[in-house]
C-alpha cells in the first residue's frame, strides 16, 4: 500500500512514459473502431434505401435484388399521387419553414437581447414543445381541430409544423444574438446611424446566417415529419404519409429514388452551410 503512495522513481516514470503511448493506441483505438461501427450501422439503412432505387425490379414489389438499372430515375413521376404527395410536402415545408422562421426569429431575438417579464414562461413552453412526444402533440392538435369543427388538410398540417418548428428556430437565433458583439452596434450609432439603420445594416446581416440555419432546420423537420402530420392531415397525403399508406401494397422504387434525392439535397445544404460557417470562423 505504502509503495504505491511513494513518488515514482525516475526509472518508473520513464517506463510509464514508454507504456503510455501503447495504451493510448489500444484504448482510443478500440473506441475509434466502435465509433466507426456505429456510424456504419447508422448509414446501413440509408445505403439500402439508395441501392434499391437502382434495383431492376419488375413491379411495385421492391424487396429482393434483381439487377442494376437507372430506369427509375427516368420514370420518377410515374405515380401521379406519389408526385402530388411530394409536391404537397415541399410546399408545406417551404411555407412552414418561412413562417416559423419569422415567428421564431422574433422570439429568439427578444430572448437574446432583452430581459423581460414572462421570458421564463416562454422558455418553459419552448422547452415543452421541443421535448413533448410527437404523438401527444398530434393527438392534442387533432382534439382541438375536432372540437373546433375545423376541416383537416394542408392548412392544419402547416399550422402544426410551424408550431413544432418555432422553438428550434428561436433557440438557434437566440444563441447567435447572445454572442453578438454590441460594440459593433454602438460604433454604428456613433457614426450617426439611427436604430433602424443600425438594425438592418449591422445587426440583421450578422444574425442572418443563424436565421438561415433555423429556416433550414425547420424545412428538414417539416418535410420528414410523420407522426404529427398523420394526426393533422385528414385525407391529404404528404410524402411520408404516402409511403406509409403504400407499405401494404408495395413500395415502388420511385420512393427510394425520391428519398435518395431528398437525402442528397439535404446533405448538400448542410455541407454548404458548414463550409460557409467554417470559412467564416477562419476569417475571424
Amino acid at each position, binding site marked *: 500500500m505504502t509503495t504505491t503512495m511513494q513518488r515514482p522513481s525516475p526509472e518508473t516514470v520513464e517506463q510509464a512514459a514508454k507504456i503510455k503511448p501503447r495504451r493510448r493506441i489500444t484504448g482510443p483505438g478500440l473506441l475509434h473502431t466502435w465509433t466507426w461501427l456505429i456510424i456504419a450501422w447508422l448509414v446501413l439503412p440509408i445505403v439500402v434505401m439508395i441501392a434499391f432505387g437502382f434495383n431492376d425490379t419488375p413491379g411495385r414489389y421492391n424487396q429482393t435484388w434483381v439487377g442494376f438499372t437507372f430506369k427509375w430515375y427516368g420514370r420518377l413521376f410515374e405515380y401521379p399521387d406519389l408526385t402530388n404527395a411530394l409536391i404537397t410536402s415541399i410546399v408545406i415545408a417551404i411555407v412552414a419553414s418561412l413562417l416559423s422562421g419569422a415567428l421564431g426569429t422574433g422570439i429568439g431575438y427578444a430572448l437574446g437581447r432583452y430581459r*423581460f417579464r414572462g421570458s421564463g414562461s416562454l422558455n418553459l413552453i419552448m*422547452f415543452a414543445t421541443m421535448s413533448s412526444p410527437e404523438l401527444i402533440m398530434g393527438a392534442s392538435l387533432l382534439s382541438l381541430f375536432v372540437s373546433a369543427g375545423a376541416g383537416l388538410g394542408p392548412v392544419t398540417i402547416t399550422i402544426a409544423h410551424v408550431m413544432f418548428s418555432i422553438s428550434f428556430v428561436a433557440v438557434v437565433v437566440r444563441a447567435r444574438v447572445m454572442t453578438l458583439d454590441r460594440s459593433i452596434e454602438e460604433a454604428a450609432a456613433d457614426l450617426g446611424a439611427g436604430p433602424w439603420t443600425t438594425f438592418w445594416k449591422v445587426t440583421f446581416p450578422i444574425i442572418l446566417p443563424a436565421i438561415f440555419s433555423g429556416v433550414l432546420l425547420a424545412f428538414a423537420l417539416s418535410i420528414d415529419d410523420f407522426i404529427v402530420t398523420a*394526426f393533422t392531415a385528414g385525407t391529404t397525403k404528404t410524402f411520408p404519409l404516402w409511403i406509409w399508406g403504400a407499405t401494404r401494397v408495395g413500395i415502388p422504387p420511385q420512393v427510394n429514388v425520391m428519398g435518395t434525392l431528398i437525402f442528397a439535397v439535404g446533405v448538400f445544404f448542410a455541407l454548404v452551410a458548414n463550409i460557409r460557417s467554417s470559412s467564416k470562423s477562419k476569417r475571424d
Partner: protein
Amino acid sequence: MNRVKNKIAPYLLVLPGAVWLLIFFAVPMVAMLSLSLQEGDIVHGYRFTGHWQTYTEAISNYDTQIIRSLIYGAIATLVLIVLAFPVAYWIAFYGGRRKPTYLFLVLLPFFVSFVLRTISWRQILTDEGPLLSPLRDMGLIGQSFHILGTPTAVILGLVYNFLPFMVLPIYVALERIDPRVVEAARDLYANPATTFRKVIFPLALPGVFAGVLMTFVPASSDYVNSEVLGSSDTTMIGQVIQAQFLENSDYPTASALSFVLMLVLLIGVFTYARILGTEDVMKVAAR
C-alpha cells in the same frame, strides 16, 4: 422615448410566435382533456358529460400496452447509453479537427424520412433479406428463426432511430470538460479507470440525463417502429392511440389514453429530474 420602446419591443417581437404556441400547443392540451371527458360518437357529435369512467376503462383495457411501451422505452434507453457513450467520448476527446465531420455522420439518418429509415430496416431484417438468408444458408440459424415481429426488432428500431439524440447531449457534456481537470487527476496518480469513474463520468452525467429524457419519452410513445418491425405481440400504446384516433374515431378513449401516457411520462420525467437535479437536466436539454 427610447426607454419606452425598449420596454415594448421584446413583447412585440415575441407576440406572434408566443400566441401561435399558446393556441396550437397549450390550448390543444386543454381540448384533449375536455374531449376525454365527453361522450358521443363521430356521427352525432360529442357532449361534455364529465364521464371519467372512460379513463378507468381505457387503463384496464390497455394496461398491457402501456407497461410494454414503458419497458421497451426503458430497454432501448439503456442500450442507447451503452452504444452512444463511447461514440460521444471518442468524438469529444479524440475527434480533433474532424469533430464536426463525425457529428455530421452521426446525424446522417436525419436526412432520410423516419418512415423510410424504418422500412429500410424491415427490408434488411426480413427472412429472405440480405442478413438472414445467408446466415440460414450457412446453417448458422434455424429455419424458424425470425427477427421481424419480435420485441428485439422493435427495440432495435427504437435504438436506431433515436441514437443521435443520445450521442449529442453526452458529447456536449464531455466537450465542456476542461482537459486540465483530467490532467490534474492523472498528476494526482489516478489511473485511467479511476479518472474515468471519479472525474469524467460525473461530469458527463448531465449529458446522459438529458439524453435519457430525449430518447425515453419519444421511444416509449412511438408507434412507427412497432407497426413496421413488430407484430400483434409487440403492440405499443402509441399504436392503440393512433388506431383509436385515426381508424376507429373513438376520440374520448383515444384522448384519455393520450392523457394517461402524457401524465405517466411527465411524472416519470419530473421524479427523474428531481432525483438527479433539475438544473443540470434543463441546462443541457436546453442546448
